[in-house]
């Protein structure tokens, strides 16, 4: 039904457009285009917008509220003895009702439930018809309202412009609201976790061992959730990755922007960007099967004790993975530095590298900082390479040759498999996610401030 509705929306829009445009053309024929305020196509667009805007709004309202009303109708049709007592029973009863309503299962349920299921199906049908009829009615009203306004002097173009603005605002609102929604959904679980586990132990605890007892008599499984080792591991791997990707990416960008001929740049840049398209799992193979053993054997040859899963292996490979983020963006910003600054510097007798060091890089700094920040966010959020190459052991160490673990890896480990959703173990994943989110938010904020501070330096 919703599909039919959306199809109807398109048809209404097209129809209203044609009618409106025709009306505009008539005005133009009658009075000459010079006396009209807007072109005929704007009359069409205005009529289309005034017809579909109420339809769209009604559709959104229906999406939000209709299923609740239908659900309430079905549940209230249950006889008193079958009425659910708590949330869990409510959900299972609703499932039964749905099965009946969909006609999947009608034999093995209680007659009361079957009746409720039939009511539910009836209400659902009604709600869909309501959607269609009210929607078309609103479209007609909107159409009539719009059509009454149309006249040669009517400012249809300004009206359409207003609609475009509202549309754009709505789209950005979706992005913002999604972020807010994510924050809140994680925040509530985090607060539940902190109700079970003290927040200062979580934030400042030095030991991470999230095994909680499944049976009461199990030994050694009380669960300590000190997140410091995880954040230390994340930071360590990020630092290793950035010390690879930072210089290599930046220098590659300088080469591409300043030294390479356009032909070479045209080849090198896409090839580097292919690196960003390699799935991280594949990088994970590479880290676990090639780099980690190589580091281990090299370390042994030097008489060092290297774990077979090491922060170094994961960090190095992650560094390679994020090179294109640094290089490609930096290359763009370096290219955006005005040629006049280069000319000025060369004209003073500066060499190429002096010009780059003293004029171009300072001018491109804000963009380079944001390139680095993007790369850091990628490194902090990366999971797969670390799972495969750095291990799961929550060691609190800054020795890159040992196994460490990161926040994202632990979140993944905590949430994989069968979990009760009210244990501290599961909820700790949300707390980790929340802190990680906060961490990257702070990074982004700092980057933004740096960019703002150095902006406007060249016009």
């Amino acid at each position, binding site marked *: 039904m919703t599909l039919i509705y959306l199809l109807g929306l398109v048809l209404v829009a097209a129809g209203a457009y044609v009618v409106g445009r025709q009306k505009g053309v008539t005005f133009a024929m009658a009075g000459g285009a010079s006396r009209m305020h807007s072109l005929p196509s704007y009359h069409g667009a205005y009529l289309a917008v005034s017809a579909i805007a109420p339809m769209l709004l009604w559709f959104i309202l229906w999406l939000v509220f209709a299923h609740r009303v239908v659900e309430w109708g079905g549940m209230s049709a249950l006889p008193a003895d079958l009425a659910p007592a708590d949330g869990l029973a409510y959900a299972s009863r609703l499932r039964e009702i749905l099965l009946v309503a969909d006609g999947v299962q009608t034999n093995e349920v209680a007659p009361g439930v079957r009746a409720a299921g039939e009511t539910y199906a009836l209400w659902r049908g009604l709600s869909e018809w309501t959607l269609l009829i009210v929607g078309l009615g609103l479209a007609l009203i909107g159409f009539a309202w719009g059509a009454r306004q149309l006249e040669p002097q009517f400012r249809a173009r300004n009206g359409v412009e207003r609609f475009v603005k509202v549309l754009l605002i709505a789209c950005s609102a979706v992005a913002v609201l999604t972020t807010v929604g994510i924050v809140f959904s994680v925040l509530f679980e985090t607060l539940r976790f902190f109700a079970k586990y003290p927040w200062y132990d979580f934030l400042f605890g030095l030991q991470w061992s999230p095994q909680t007892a499944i049976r009461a008599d199990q030994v050694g499984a009380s669960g300590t959730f000190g997140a410091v080792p995880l954040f230390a591991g994340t930071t360590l791997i990020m630092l290793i990755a950035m010390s690879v990707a930072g210089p290599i990416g930046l220098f590659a960008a300088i080469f591409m922007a300043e030294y390479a001929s356009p032909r070479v740049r045209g080849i090198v840049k896409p090839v580097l960007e292919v690196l960003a398209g390699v799935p991280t799992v594949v990088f994970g193979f590479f880290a676990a099967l090639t780099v980690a053993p190589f580091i281990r054997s090299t370390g042994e040859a030097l008489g060092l004790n290297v774990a077979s899963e090491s922060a170094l292996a994961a960090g190095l490979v992650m560094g390679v993975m994020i090179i294109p983020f640094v290089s490609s963006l930096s290359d763009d910003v370096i290219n955006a530095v005005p040629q006049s600054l280069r000319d*000025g510097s060369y004209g003073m*007798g500066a060499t190429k590298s002096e010009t780059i060091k003293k*004029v171009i890089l300072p001018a491109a700094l804000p963009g380079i900082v944001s390139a680095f920040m993007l790369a850091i966010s990628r490194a902090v959020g990366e999971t797969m390479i670390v799972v495969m190459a750095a291990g799961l052991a929550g060691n609190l160490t800054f020795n890159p040759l040992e196994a460490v673990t990161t926040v994202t890896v632990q979140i993944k480990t905590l949430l994989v498999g069968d979990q009760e959703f009210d244990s501290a173990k599961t909820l700790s994943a949300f707390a980790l996610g929340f802190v990680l989110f906060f961490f990257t938010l702070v990074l982004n904020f700092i980057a933004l401030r740096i960019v703002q501070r150095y902006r406007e330096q060249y016009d």
Partner: protein
Amino acid sequence: MDATATAARPKPTASATLPAGDPKIVAKDVNVYYAEKHALKNVSLDIPERAVMAFIGPSGCGKSTFLRCINRMNDTIASCRVVGSIKIDDQDIYDPSLDVVQLRARVGMVFQKPNPFPKSIYENIAYGPRIHGLARSKAELDEIVEQALRKASLWNEVKDRLQDTGTGLSGGQQQRLCIARAIAVSPEVILMDEPCSALDPIATAKIEELIDELRQNFTIVIVTHSMQQAARVSQRTAFFHLGVIVETGPTERIFTSPNDKRTQDYITGRFG
């Protein structure tokens, strides 16, 4: 060689007299190609020392190209090829053994649009002396910066805000900052590529006054679209057209009794 400035801006006649002696820059049969395009054809020109030489001509006639040959700025354009010889003080600047960095320290350049670096006023001026190692101490560098700003008649306007960013100055001040930046490395020649085309008349007048003062110490070559400007500031003028020099001579003669019909047409505004 006794051209005097025209009446557009009164000047003491003595300072307008060209000094005698050998020309500072001697160009012989210079040809420039941009890929396939033959932009300059057999240009030969003598540029006198401590005087202002103006290049005039319609757009695309090659005057800027020739200017950029004098400090080899055309090297930065990959498709550009220069044939012929340009000598400064009898030294061929296209000699492979010549260091282009040193050449550009001797031949400074000021561009069409003011292009101060996105740094403080002080750092803008100190840039050249630093890369060429002209100052041994902070005090010496301060002195160079002050002298350069004074010579560019900018000192009084900026002395209290040397740490402010150079891009915050007005257009005319920015251009004088760029001139000061060029002066700071004590060049012998200053090339100016339409230095006033982005400026208002008052800022233009200030720059023109400045150019007139600078010719006491520097050899100046200026490209300009404004014939009045060429008449006001220069002692010699070369008229470029379609990649060749049509006529060159004392400015006053070029503007009062040109030998070539094309020059006559251009300065009277028939084309260009």
